[in-house]
């Protein structure tokens, strides 16, 4: 009887902790890997460790990023002035690249697009951590993700992810889910945002200690 009461109390507390839990805070902040210890080795094979850095856009950088993203579609990229999480990847003591993710509004929910980048800014892995929709799974297949390998920010110079028009390698990437076309272009926009942010934070020389 005493045991039953005890377990009832434990459940009661578990229930209470659920009911009275503080609401998840800062959902609108950057985009974190849900389990970095598990995800980093998968997204960066051969890596041995990683460090986490949090970076934010400076005032002048913010306006420049908005311009580069295309001001007409600013709403799609908001909010930009949040802290961004950058995973610096190491093999032994040598830095070998970065992993960075961004949030993007999708047709049925938030989309989280991560890329692994080498030290020159080329994509070595592409990962959609979260996407919602009837054919969402097709965007998470290796077949879709592998099409982005080797691309860099330069590939977006000749391609507009808002209209879907341009030349180069990007137009060759096909939407695998016709019922989620909005999300396909959202993913491309998210990728461009991701690469621009990494250019500002890491690859451009305007900041000290990239």
């Amino acid at each position: 009887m005493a045991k039953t009461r005890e377990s009832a109390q434990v459940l009661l507390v578990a229930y209470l902790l659920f009911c009275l839990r503080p609401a998840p805070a800062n959902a609108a902040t950057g985009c974190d890997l849900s389990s970095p210890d598990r995800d980093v080795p998968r997204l960066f094979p051969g890596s041995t460790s990683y460090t986490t850095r949090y970076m934010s856009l400076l005032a002048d950088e913010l306006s420049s990023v908005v311009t580069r993203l295309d001001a007409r579609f600013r709403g799609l990229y908001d909010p930009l002035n949040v802290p961004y999480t950058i995973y610096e990847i190491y093999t032994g003591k040598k830095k070998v690249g970065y992993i960075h993710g961004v949030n993007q509004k999708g047709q049925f929910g938030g989309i989280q697009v991560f890329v692994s980048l080498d030290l020159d800014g080329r994509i070595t892995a592409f990962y959609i951590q979260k996407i919602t929709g009837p054919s969402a799974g097709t965007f998470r297949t290796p077949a879709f993700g592998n099409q982005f390998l080797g691309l860099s920010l330069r590939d977006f110079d000749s391609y507009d992810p808002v209209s879907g028009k341009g030349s180069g390698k990007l137009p060759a990437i096909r939407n695998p889910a016709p019922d989620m076309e909005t999300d396909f272009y959202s993913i491309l926009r998210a990728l461009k945002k991701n690469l621009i942010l990494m250019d500002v934070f890491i690859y451009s020389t305007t900041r000290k200690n990239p």
Partner: protein
Amino acid sequence: MIGRFRIAWKNLWRKKARTFLTVGGITLSSWVLVSLLGFNRGYENALDRDIDNMGYQLMVMAKGCPYEAATLMLQGGTGLRYIEQSTVDSVKAEPGVAMVTPILMQAYFDPNKGENGGIAGYFGVDAASYAAMKPFLRFKKGGWFIGENAEEVVMGFEAAELEQRDVGDMTFVPEKNVQLKVVGILERTGTQDDGTIFVPLKTLQRIAGTDRITTIGIKMEKDADAGGLEARLYELPNVQVVSFTQVKQTIMKLVSTARLMVFSIVIIALLIAMVGVVNTVLMSVLERLPEIGVLKAMGAMPGDIFLLIWTETLILCSCGGIAGIGLGFAFARFTGVLARRILPYAPKGGLVEIDLRLAAVTLAVIVAAGLVSGIVPAWKAGRVRPMESIRSAI
């Protein structure tokens, strides 16, 4: 003519270092005491606020698995038990029940959330009764569903932010492949509602393929007999009752261990401070035996000397007590943050609430403890024999 208070003050001022150290000890005791009393009150009030924000004081759910929400969390919604919706009418008919709201909780597996998938939770609610029970809910944008069968959702602030949803956007229920339109986004409440997606009860029942519910939230009438109502609800078939008073008591029991430990430390600190007071005042008496002897030779009665020494104790304790209370006020927020880190569960809001009444109680305790400590040295000073003490100085 110089008064007793002034003499006592001057005496204390003669040995500044000793006086400051003693006052320091009392300050610390007073600080800890006022903070503990403030925590006692603050924690309970914060817990009450959290429970009030739930909107209901009692919950009725299916017998078997006592805590549906815990099940949702642990089993991804597969272990849910249901009650008949007719139970709502039976509950409503009970005396003492002011309002009831039926709730259907559902959780669906979303394979595209994280590496291995995640759970998407939904609350099926009857907008009218749910909103009536939580009058503090305000809309940031939009409003409640247009009808009880509407294919719509209302999202809590955090849920909308996470999913980047705005009014007019669509959401998608995984597993069931159902699309629902966002018609309202709630303002941030600081409660679990912030992370919740609300669906009209009948719509969620249709999606889930059930005509039953998982929970009934009950708001009692003011001054209703909670125990009696709980007992009557237990007589309904196949249900069990969770009372938030009971939940509060369980949490308070968990916290009481921590409180007991801190309270023991307060007692020890208070005892150390009392010993410090005895030591300081007694030393001061022993050093001033010839002076006390002169005072008595000039006609001072034992009672006058007793009161003089007691006044010194009073000054020491009052200064220390007031300084400690000041620190308690100044660092209440910091103490709350510290307590939040240590405690197994801390409700939202300030955990340490100190007001003037509490400050007065603390000061009274400190002064009373100090005066008790001062009895021995004061009594000793009062019994000094004038001739012997004057002679000892020669």
